[in-house]
């Protein structure tokens, strides 16, 4: 590897000839350049952030601390535990105490659970619009669930979401709006965005329409800040959290019933329709998936949409139970 050379260059130890050699290497392949940039970044970071000098500002008297340490270790004597055979009476007492603990904690848990999350909304095959006490509006997609404590809005604005919801949050700097999903947390001040976190999905997605959102996954100690037009994707399998520009025009179709396709490939069109209408359209492997579709639907029924696709793409399909299978595409 070129590590030695790169590091010599970064520490200013290279000769003119070596500089040249490095330059040639960097231009040979894009990944060489990337590698070089990574090293440069690491090097700059480690020099910038690593300094022992900051410790000097700490208000610590090392001699005093050492004195305290010596006191601790000399005082510390291993306690000797007397071995007394356990009497049957003591055993019963222990069992009684254990039972008492179980009963009491059951009552306490009940109390906490039922006091804290006593408002819950659950959707089946319909969407639902909910206005929260402080004025924020949440639209729940099908098969989703939203819950919050009866104390919502008093000290904080915390809700839990399963499934998908579109949030239009009222601004309140004092009380950030916090949404807990399966593994992550979305925190906002006032803004609108979409959260998708279905149990059966491998990814949790947060797409921002206006304002900014912080999306964090405490388990992995990751977080991204997202602004309008961006989306954050957390992969449950890879435990990775990334933010990227949102290129999906239809992330709100399930709510707005407006679908826009601009030179979209058939495969992604089908995917969008499946999500928007919660249906199961299947594209068999032998059907070309790259036909391009450009069309806008506004509050159309699935039937109408399929009709349009049938005539424009010269496509046929059959309905088997709750599955729609594309049988031919003529583009």
């Amino acid at each position, binding site marked *: 590897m070129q590590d030695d050379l790169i590091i010599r260059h970064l520490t200013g130890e290279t000769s003119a000839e070596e500089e040249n050699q490095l330059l040639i290497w960097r231009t040979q392949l894009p990944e060489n350049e990337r590698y070089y940039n990574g090293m440069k970044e690491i090097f700059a970071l*480690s020099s910038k952030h690593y300094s022992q000098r900051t410790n000097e500002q700490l208000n610590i008297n090392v001699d005093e601390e050492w004195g305290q340490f010596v006191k601790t*270790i000399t005082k510390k004597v291993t306690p000797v535990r007397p071995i007394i055979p356990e009497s049957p009476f003591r055993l019963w007492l222990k069992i009684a105490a254990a039972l008492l603990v179980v009963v009491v904690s059951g009552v306490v848990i009940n109390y906490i659970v039922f006091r804290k999350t006593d408002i819950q909304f659950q959707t089946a095959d319909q969407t639902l619009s909910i206005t929260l006490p402080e004025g924020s509006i949440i639209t729940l997609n099908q098969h989703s669930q939203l819950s919050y404590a009866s104390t919502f809005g008093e000290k904080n604005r915390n809700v839990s979401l399963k499934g998908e919801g579109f949030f239009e949050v009222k601004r309140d700097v004092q009380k950030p709006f916090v949404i807990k999903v399966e593994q992550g947390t979305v925190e906002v001040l006032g803004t609108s965005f979409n959260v998708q976190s279905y149990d059966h999905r491998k990814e949790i997605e947060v797409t921002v329409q206006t304002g900014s959102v912080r999306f964090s996954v405490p388990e992995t100690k990751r977080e991204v800040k997202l602004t309008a037009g961006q989306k954050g994707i957390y992969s449950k399998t890879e435990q990775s959290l990334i933010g990227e520009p949102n290129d999906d025009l239809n992330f709100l179709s399930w709510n707005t019933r407006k679908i826009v396709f601009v030179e979209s490939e058939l495969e992604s069109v089908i995917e969008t329709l499946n999500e928007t209408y919660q249906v199961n359209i299947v594209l068999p492997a032998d059907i070309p998936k790259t036909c391009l579709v450009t069309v806008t639907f506004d509050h159309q029924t699935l039937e109408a949409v399929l009709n349009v696709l049938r005539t424009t793409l010269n496509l046929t399909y059959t309905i088997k139970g709750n599955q729609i299978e594309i049988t031919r595409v003529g583009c």
Partner: protein
Amino acid sequence: MAEKDLKSFEKLFKELFKPLCGFSLKYVRDLDEAKGLVHEVFVSVWEKFDTLPADINYHSYLYTSVRNRSLNFIRDRKKHVQFENVAEHELTEANSPFETVELEREIEMAIHSLPEKCRMVFELNRVEGLTYAQVAEKMSISIKTVEAHMSKALSVLREYLKEFLSILIFLVIL
């Protein structure tokens, strides 16, 4: 325990107590808590002092222990005040979009997990600003060896900071 052991332990304690507090502080953000945790670590190391291998890398061992204890401490604290630390997050974010503290402590951890000679070379070059030749002279080693230590240091850093690197690259794309 033998008197001479306490003497060598004192040296270790006085060298690392303050830096370790600074390191722990980057997790727990409270100096008294940090000091307490570092004390605990030293006490537990002292108890094992005569059973630890002679060639153990104390820097690495102590930093790892302090890091683990600090993480446990935060985890336990989080259980108690689950939502209050949202505000704490807010504070750090004001400075930079991605927590600088988090980055700083990773770098510190990486550097202290290096073999001792390697860490000394790196610190002399990076912190003290000595050239390869000066480092070589000071440590009575060859320039080639200095170079090898620097390479090693950077590759360990790269390993530790890989995740930050990808985040930083993502920032550039934005």
